[in-house]
């Protein structure tokens, strides 16, 4: 079709700012998401942490807290997916389909606030684990921050991918909870990876949580080796790219979705 009316909005950054500003406001005013992502891992780490993690001795509680934080940081899958579905709940998708903003800017703006929230959760739990729960820090905090940022990036990209592939919010939410629990378990965020059955360890390599926990263990109980941490970074970056690229390939501003929230 010859359509001379189509032209992308100005810039990636401008689009990301405009979309991100609205998303941040919406997220801030819906306090339940903020409470949920902080309270749930805190409660579970406090009650179940050392008992189910298989750890004992100094730093065990700290590692358990970090593990639950890693697991629940994947709430970002739900929040990022909902951020995209929100346009269909409120009927604003037609306006975006008309404007056709930069896809990259739109995607970044959509996921940035929820990714920032999940990253903040990891940072706060990391500080608590190191300062109050005697988690050792063999490497630098930068190593932990990098792994956390990439883990959250992979989760946000997965939320985007789930949005692109699903038609309803309910389906996306179910998938998000499924990966939150199973990836968390397989990746060694709940029970230490070495204590998991061999078959599940093999599956664990295919989860972002495993690579995040591997980097975390190297930075805390290990030697802070950049080689080990760097391998984890590469794996996490790979997840970000694979999820993001497939999501972008499947994404369509005109896609019809179920508008029920």
């Amino acid at each position, binding site marked *: 079709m010859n359509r001379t*009316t189509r032209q992308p*909005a100005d810039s990636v950054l401008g689009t990301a700012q405009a979309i991100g500003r609205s998303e941040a406001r919406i997220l801030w005013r819906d306090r339940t998401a903020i409470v949920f992502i902080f309270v749930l891992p805190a409660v579970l780490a406090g009650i179940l942490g050392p008992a189910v993690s298989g750890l004992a001795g100094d730093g065990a509680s700290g590692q358990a807290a970090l593990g639950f934080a890693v697991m629940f940081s994947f709430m970002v899958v739900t929040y990022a997916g909902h951020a995209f579905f929100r346009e269909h709940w409120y*009927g604003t998708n037609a306006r975006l*389909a008309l404007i056709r903003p930069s896809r990259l800017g739109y995607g970044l703006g959509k996921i940035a606030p929820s990714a920032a929230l999940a990253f903040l959760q990891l940072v706060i739990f990391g500080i608590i684990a190191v300062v109050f729960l005697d988690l050792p820090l063999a490497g630098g905090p930068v190593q932990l921050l990098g792994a956390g940022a990439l883990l959250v990036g992979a989760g946000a990209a997965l939320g985007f991918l789930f949005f692109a592939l699903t038609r309803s919010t309910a389906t996306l939410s179910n998938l998000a909870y499924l990966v939150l629990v199973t990836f968390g378990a397989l990746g060694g965020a709940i029970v230490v990876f070495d204590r998991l059955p061999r078959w599940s360890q093999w599956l664990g390599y295919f989860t972002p949580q495993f690579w995040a926990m591997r980097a975390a263990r190297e930075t805390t109980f290990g030697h802070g080796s950049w080689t080990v941490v760097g391998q984890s970074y590469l794996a996490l970056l790979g997840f970000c790219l694979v999820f993001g690229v497939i999501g972008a390939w499947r994404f369509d501003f005109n*896609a019809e979705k179920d508008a029920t929230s």
Partner: protein
Amino acid sequence: MTNVAEGPALTVEHLTFTYPNTASPQLEDVNLRLMAGAAAGVLGANGAGKSTLLRAITGTVAGATVGRVEVGIGGTTRDIGFATQDVALYPTLTVAENIEQSASLLLHRSAVASAIEGIINEFRLDHLADRPCHELSGGQRRLAHLAVSFVHAPAVRFLDEPTTALDFETRANLIKIVRRWVAEGIAIVVTAHYPEDIEDLCTELHLLGDHTLRRLGSLREVQGRGQPVIVVTGRTTAGEVEEITLPAPNDAIDVETLRDALPPGFALHSVEPRGTRLRDLLGDDPTLRSLLVEEPA
């Protein structure tokens, strides 16, 4: 705005649209040519495809679209505004914040603040600007929706049933705004269920039916084609639905006169003015009040 003074503001040629997974097209060979300062009203029954027509022209619907859509001369996205039938606002954001997002996506950063202020003033939303949209009434939400849709002052504006949920005063305000747009040279396409909306908002009439769009002519041409009449629908004593056409009076018609003109025992269902305008309903009759019909031109 794009310079559209030298040619049509909107050209749609041989537009055919088919929804995904359907064999036959919803719209077939649609043609529409709209000059600057023209307001095209599109009438059609429920399910005729009025919303689909606007969404196909604006490229905001999933499906196979064939044909040509051109806005002005080298027009861009910024020259189109589309107020969808359903109000599209983020409920927890304020009116100003909703407008800000659209403005930020469509306008240069330096123009955003003045555009927001301008559209808020135009739609008289200043007292609501800082209120979250979920706190607004249906009519206020409709106006905020229109403000968000047209904050970038596009040269061509699509309005899908814009008077839905508006009270009398707000509707009158919207009519004034749309007429001012038309006077300023903006081209408008409006869909409506009711001819009254078309009469109030538009300069030309199109009918959507049998999957295509037919131009019936300018509003004056259409109105001048027949004698003004009142069409009365009801049920006869035999139980059959019947439509009776009566010449429209020059001024008022009271209930007794109307009943005298109908067969005995005729159970009246509805009264519809054609080629004239039902201006008001007066009287004390609980079932049917006297009809005051505007004097035909």
